[in-house]
């Protein structure tokens, strides 16, 4: 049977207000956590692939207990195996540690197809997919924006500024997805009831020491105050500023 793994990261809602206290993002002040939007596309492809091939899907997240939510949400859409990787001693993992943790789990899953977002919506590093592929000795295709997983040979398309590239990979392989026009499916009540019974396996992994330490998080610089112009006589001045200062015209 075809086996699919999908990597899902929990991130602050993209509209959540981020506050910094004592040089660190104050996570307790974030009211809404969601599945990273790029990962949602990876999940959508995984489910389409499952529908076409009868594959089984394992969703994997790395995060504290609150991250169970992304797995439950995936279960509500029909994902059957749920794994959360975590150790209470972990704090801020660097890219190498994240990849170590995830690939340890992936080795056990023996997935043919490993799907994830092209980057997470909070850190935006874009290192997880390629890094995991490297560790597992697999090829990786990044920033996929279109796909056809209905046939025996799935194909994936990357849009570049110079045209499209359509690729037909042989599994096992790691694929990362960008946002597309595809409408993401919604859960339904029956799926949510099934998710209630779903079992989340919590595991740890040996991830070595961190090479990178966070020194401080800093909020973005305050935007300068807006300026207000009134009357038709100010038009030349506004146009001048838009051209010379804002450089938008």
């Amino acid at each position, binding site marked *: 049977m075809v086996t699919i793994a999908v990597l899902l990261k929990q991130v602050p*809602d993209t*509209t959540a207000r981020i506050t910094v206290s004592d040089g660190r993002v104050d996570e307790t002040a974030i*009211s*809404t956590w*969601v599945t990273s939007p790029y990962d949602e596309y990876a999940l959508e492809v995984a489910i389409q692939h499952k529908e076409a091939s009868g594959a089984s899907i394992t969703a994997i997240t790395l995060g504290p207990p609150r991250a169970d*939510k992304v797995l*439950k*949400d995936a279960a*509500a859409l029909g994902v059957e195996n749920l794994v959360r990787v975590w150790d209470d001693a972990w704090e801020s993992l660097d890219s190498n540690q994240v990849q170590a943790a995830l690939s340890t789990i992936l080795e056990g899953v023996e997935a043919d197809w490993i799907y994830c977002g092209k980057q997470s919506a909070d850190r935006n590093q874009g290192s997880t997919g390629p890094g995991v592929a490297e560790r597992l000795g697999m090829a990786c295709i990044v920033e996929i924006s279109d796909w056809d997983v209905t046939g025996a040979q799935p194909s994936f398309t990357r849009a570049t500024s110079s045209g499209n590239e359509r690729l037909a990979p042989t599994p096992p392989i790691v694929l990362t997805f960008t946002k597309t026009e595809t409408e993401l499916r*919604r*859960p*339904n*009540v*029956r799926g*949510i*009831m099934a*998710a*209630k019974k779903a079992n989340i396996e919590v595991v740890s992994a040996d991830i070595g020491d961190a090479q990178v330490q966070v020194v401080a998080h800093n909020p973005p610089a305050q935007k300068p105050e807006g300026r207000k112009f009134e009357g038709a006589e100010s038009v030349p001045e506004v146009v001048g500023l838009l051209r010379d200062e804002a450089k938008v015209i």
Partner: protein
Amino acid sequence: MTYEGVDFYDIESELTDEEKMVRDMARDWVEAEVVPNIEQACRDGVFPDEWRVALGEMGVLGMALDGYGCAGMSYVAYGLVCQELERGDSGVRSFASVQGSLAMYPIHDFGSEEQKQKYLPKMASGEWVGCFGLTEPDYGSNPGDMITKAVDEGDDYVLNGAKMWITNGTIADVAIVWAKLDGVIRGFIVEKDDPGFSAPEMTGKHSLRASVTSELVFQDCKIPKDRILPHVEGLKGPFSCLNNARYGICWGAVGAAQSCFHSAKEYALSRIQFGNPIAAFQLVQNKLAWMLREITKGQLLALSLGRKKDAGTWTPEQISLAKMNNVDMALEIARMARDIHGANGILDEYPIMRHMANLESVKTYEGTHDIHNLILGRHITGIQSFTREL
């Protein structure tokens, strides 16, 4: 932007994961499909058919019932869905209430095994629409005196009479009709193509415009014998349906109120008069504080009632109090929000007038505000004052 509801008393922490997931599912759908399209639906006076399909796909129709394609979720989850739907529009919540609480519930609780198997799965999926015919032109608050009649004619029952103000009537495949058989109120399942049955739509509404409201007319309408609901007699039948639907309204009204509150808050912060946002004036803050206070009380009432329902301990009087209170406060909040919006408040650019007009229906249906007062009055004094000798 993701919509965040009012949650001043951290109700979130009292919900299960599943309840939150179902609420978010409904919330996202309302945000994506209802909010952008509701004004047009109201202008056209239609309930968009896509919404029927979507509600069925989401599985919210009859979601608190067990088996036969229904999810068997908690009544709190069902209430949260009602809250989200009515934040969009009372018409959407009405569709779901009528389908789940008024049409599917009586089949589920009072129907035969064959009836349950035949109707419930198709109604849960939204393929078949149901309606509930109790009110008659001359009998609204006192349905006990209804004149619609069923006569046993050997192989069939024959129905004669008329129902009025029936939500979903014209689009219904299945009507649960309450009529007197030998002087006793019984429930009958009438299908849309039954001979002698018609369901013309009522027009001219200023309220619940995105909801179909109809008459049901029975002229020697013949239905097979196996269409009677075998397990209930008397007013208990329709009243137990109404209890469930009233419960959904308790939550729904909170949703409509939240929509008005949010709009008023945003508007007050951005509208400048006398050199300040109007939100900076104490009189306006007083209004906003009152709204928050009433919404919060209404939420706590609805949640408490839902937990009682799930535990099987609610009383009809508790439902009456919550229905009456929450619709009342929502209507008052709509009016206050309209006031805060000034002239803009009358425009369809804002949801205010629509909710206000809708809530006038919600105040009247499922037991008028004063009928619930009388239910509480009887509870307090032991004296019924519904009827009186003049």
